[in-house]
């Protein structure tokens, strides 16, 4: 597997003016990305996670050429992103979850048509790609609608199709599932998984939602305060971090603490009990064991929050 993204000692600082008093202002440097290094192989799907303000978006913006790095070395598809931005653009697709790459006032179909021409996608390729993406992302009924009339989930699907029309080798997604309902999230994850395994598109995904990573990526990088604090497999993240999933069980009546192999009771409140199990392990046997009880009324699983996983990484 050859490296398609090479990052070595990448840094980005911002100078921020802070008001000290009415007239005095103080400049100080904020290190948003503080010397990170990694390589991504062609065809990898990697999750890039971290708390707000950790430097995720700043990294992605340097990888796409939007921001010029303050230091370090950076190559994407063999190019220096900020110096050869328009050339790099043909190799990458970018989806910013909070924003749209579509034209607000144009119908979805016109936005695609325009992008196809901007990227010089040959007509037969364009037609084939559009048909495939419309089919996979269920966009057929939306094509004639102006983008401003689409719901958040519809727009996100529209944006992902827009980012893939020119067959990019690398797809960056910044918080693609933020604000989506459960069904939309599930469909989107499945689409990304297939895109990665079938088309071999390299995916770099930033997210707050660990489930996104679990279902799409085999590798996770964790950034905090501008530094990489973890780079490895998803199971390893949970093993090393020691984060735990919680199963919340509602029973018909209060009973003594449940005894389920692989899980421990962490809290009891009347008929409701909280069971905790390692996040790296499967929850299926625990759920099955609980399902066998006839006094079970309801059951739900809470995934560990990203902040907990990161806290756990520090205290290991």
């Amino acid at each position, binding site marked *: 597997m050859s490296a398609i993204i090479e990052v070595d000692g990448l840094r980005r600082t*911002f100078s921020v003016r802070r008001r000290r008093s009415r007239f005095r202002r103080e400049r100080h440097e904020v290190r948003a990305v503080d010397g990170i290094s990694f390589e991504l192989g062609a065809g990898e799907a990697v999750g890039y996670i971290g708390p707000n303000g950790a430097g995720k*978006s700043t990294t992605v*913006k340097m990888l*796409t*050429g*939007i*921001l*010029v790095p303050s230091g370090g070395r950076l190559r994407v598809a063999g190019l220096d992103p*900020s110096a050869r*931005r*328009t*050339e790099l*653009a*043909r190799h*990458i697709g*970018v989806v*910013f979850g*909070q*924003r*749209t*790459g579509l*034209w607000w*006032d*144009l119908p979805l179909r*016109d936005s695609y*048509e*325009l*992008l196809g*021409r*901007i*990227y*010089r996608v040959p007509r037969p390729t364009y037609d084939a790609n559009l048909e495939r993406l419309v089919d996979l992302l269920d966009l057929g009924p939306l094509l004639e609608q102006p983008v401003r009339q689409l719901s958040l989930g519809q727009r996100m699907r529209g944006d992902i199709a827009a980012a893939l029309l020119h067959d990019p080798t690398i797809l960056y997604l*910044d*918080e693609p599932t933020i604000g989506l309902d459960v069904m939309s999230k599930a469909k989107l994850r499945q689409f990304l998984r297939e895109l990665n395994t079938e088309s071999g598109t390299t995916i770099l995904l930033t997210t707050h939602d660990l489930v996104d990573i679990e279902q799409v990526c085999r590798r996770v990088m964790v950034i905090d305060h501008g530094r990489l604090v973890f780079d490895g497999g998803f199971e390893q993240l949970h093993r090393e971090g020691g984060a735990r999933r919680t199963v919340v069980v509602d029973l018909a009546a209060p009973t003594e603490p449940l005894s389920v192999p692989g899980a421990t009771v962490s809290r009891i409140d009347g008929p409701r009990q909280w069971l905790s199990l390692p996040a790296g392990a499967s929850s299926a046997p625990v759920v099955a064991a609980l399902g066998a009880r006839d006094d079970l009324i309801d059951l739900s699983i809470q995934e560990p929050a990203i902040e907990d996983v990161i806290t756990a990484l520090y205290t290991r």
Partner: protein
Amino acid sequence: MAEAVRGFAIIAGAWMRAAMTYRTSFVLGTVVQFVITFMDFAAIIIMFGHIEAFGGFSISEIALLYAISGFGLGAADLLVGNAEALGRRIRDGSFDQMLVRPVPALVQVAADHFALRRLGRIAQSSAVLAWAMSAAPIDWTVARVVVLVAAMASGSVIFSAIFVMGGAFQVFAGDAAEVANAFTYGGNTLTQYPLTIYPTELVKGVTFIVPLAFVNWYPGLYILGIDDPFGLPDWLRFASPVAALVFVAAAAAIWRTAVRRYRSTGS
């Protein structure tokens, strides 16, 4: 360069087609633009109902200056006027999107929401120019026609450069569209009248700092065959294309610096 023109044509074309789906709105918009800019010239006509000359210039001579400046601003506004909305684009994140597409960002900024109704100002200026060319006491020669055409082209370039600089300025200073407006629309208003009505310091400023005097004043003096009232050298009359090239090179350098210094917004 060819890539830039192609990109502009593609994006502008899409917006023109989109506008044509609302044909009535397009026609109304163009007519309204024409009428508004015409009212602007009507003010000068009314003024001349009370006076014979203004700053030593007759109404037909002023009409010539007015038309060259108006044409330059109109053409610049049509092509790159959208640069003044850059502050908004930075805030809503659409500028980030432009930076990841294979067409120069400035071309995308300029062509986005391209609106042909902006032809209104060009149409009005052309009408005033046609009248001025026949009414003003001009001894038409080939050289004078060449200077006129060069002035119209140079004026368009100078106003375009100001729009681009104004856009670049917003990368550093947030939403500051008004600063650029002071020089584009403000510069247009200033150059609609003969510079003889202004103090010498201002005339030097618009000659050597922001080259607005090259839009219409110096070439206008040549076309009208008038000696420079400020006694500045005669070669300035032919220097408009040079001034435009120097100024547009400065604008390009400022734009490139702005993109390299761009900080994007949070998230």
